[in-house]
């Protein structure tokens, strides 16, 4: 087991509306095995993104534990120090958010290469690998040195996806990484997950598209109204019954 999500809850206290509390996640528990691909599904607002953000600690869980078996030992991402989170993010934990949020006026190839050179890879070698990834994602070569701010939604999403997988993290969190891609490009992206990431990579990904879930997932975590509804093997997953 690489990840143990243990009765995790997240509530938001909104001071702006008189301290009203909004539930994000309530008592969610499940475990993830090494090398497993877990798809998180559920309706909009069911807590899928909140779950990924709690694992990445962009949201600070209100209760519970998130035990990640890192190469250096167990780290409880819900309760460890900010510095421990930064160390794990820099080496073993990757996250592709729904939206690309990068420094302006940095060429696409450098956006993708940066996480690799920040981990010590030679700059040119990192750029070369970034170009290979962007090529595999069918991004036109003339865009490699352009600024992503001017890109279409689908182009930006490819840059964001390439950046997240580039350093080959042991645990990868994907938040609807292919939502803006056409079927052909989506197929390239999913193929790349298979080809580029080592088989030992563990992925927890939020997906809306049933075909994608069917294609990539080993197990499915179903969330409903901030609660865990069910965890099932992909063979037993029937979206009609569960939705």
């Amino acid at each position: 087991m690489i990840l143990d999500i243990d009765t995790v809850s997240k509530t938001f206290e909104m001071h702006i509306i008189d301290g009203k509390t909004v539930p994000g996640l309530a008592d969610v528990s499940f475990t993830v095995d090494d090398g497993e691909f877990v798809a998180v599904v559920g309706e909009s607002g069911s807590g899928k993104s909140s779950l990924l953000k709690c694992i990445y600690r962009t949201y600070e869980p209100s209760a519970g534990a998130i035990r990640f078996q890192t190469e250096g030992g167990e780290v409880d991402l819900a309760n460890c120090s900010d510095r421990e989170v930064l160390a794990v993010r820099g080496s073993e934990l990757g996250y592709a958010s729904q939206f690309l949020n990068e420094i302006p006026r940095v060429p696409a190839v450098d956006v993708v290469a940066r996480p690799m050179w920040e981990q010590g890879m030679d700059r040119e070698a990192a750029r070369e690998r970034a170009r290979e990834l962007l090529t595999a994602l069918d991004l036109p070569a003339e865009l490699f040195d352009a600024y992503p701010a001017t890109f279409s939604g689908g182009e930006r999403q490819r840059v964001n996806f390439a950046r997240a997988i580039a350093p080959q993290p042991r645990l990868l969190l994907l938040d609807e990484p292919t939502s803006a891609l056409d079927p052909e490009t989506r197929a390239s992206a999913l193929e790349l997950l298979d080809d580029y990431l080592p088989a030992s990579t563990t992925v927890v990904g939020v997906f809306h598209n049933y075909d994608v879930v069917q294609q990539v997932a080993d197990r499915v975590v179903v969330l409903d109204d901030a609660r865990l509804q069910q965890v099932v093997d992909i063979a037993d997953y029937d979206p009609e019954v569960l939705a």
Partner: protein
Amino acid sequence: MTVLDVANLTKIYGDACGECVDNTGPSVGDNQCPVCGSVVACADVDFQLHDGEVLGIVGESGSGKSSLAEMLALDLDATAGDARYHAYDGNMLSADYQARHELQNQHVGMVHQHVQDGLELSFSGGGNVAEKLLAAGWRHYGDIRDRVESLFRETEVPVSRMDDATETYSGGMQRRIQIAKAIANDPGLVVLDEPTTGLDVSVQARVLDMFRGLQREQDVATIVVSHDLDVIRLLADRTLVMRHGRVIETGLTDRIMEDPHHEYTQTLINSVI
């Protein structure tokens, strides 16, 4: 490794009455002492900074963040507090004149909000940077010239402008010269005070990206003070939020931006246009 360990850092402007700190802060909603009228710019600030880390300090005008930056760059005397810098024995805030200059010249680089605080505008850009090298004991003309040239390249200022007066440089170039000067002696700590204020939007991104590249390459511990959340978001790993001279919230920068806890932080995040 801890580069800087700050405890109880406090700055009071005026003849403090002894109760100023208790009488001010977010719970009171003001930073001016109602008893004696002194202004508590910041009080009881604690944090640690590790090598290679970028710490953001964000808050509105008057929250005390610039006073904090100036004290850490040893440009402003602290009223109270303790700051341990790894290469200095003791509290660097109470360093004597000579030790203070040595720290400023060799260990702590400062990029000022107002260019005239950081540069002599009638001097050449190269001269401004060379001055920092001279202060650190560089003597050989050729070596100094080579070092200044390489700093110009690193900070993306045209070497051909090296001998022109700094006042003829654009705002973005002046900011880059300040950065070149701040990093000239490979400091262990760099303090940036509002690094993009007064620059065109088109220039801001270049300056930030250039600095971020240098910072990561050299692994230098950095404190970035800004009222601009985008600057903090793009540079800082962790962030302190200040209000009325106090730190009201601390956390990972993305956590502060997406899951702000304190009422004021929520207002701040929701105020971005």
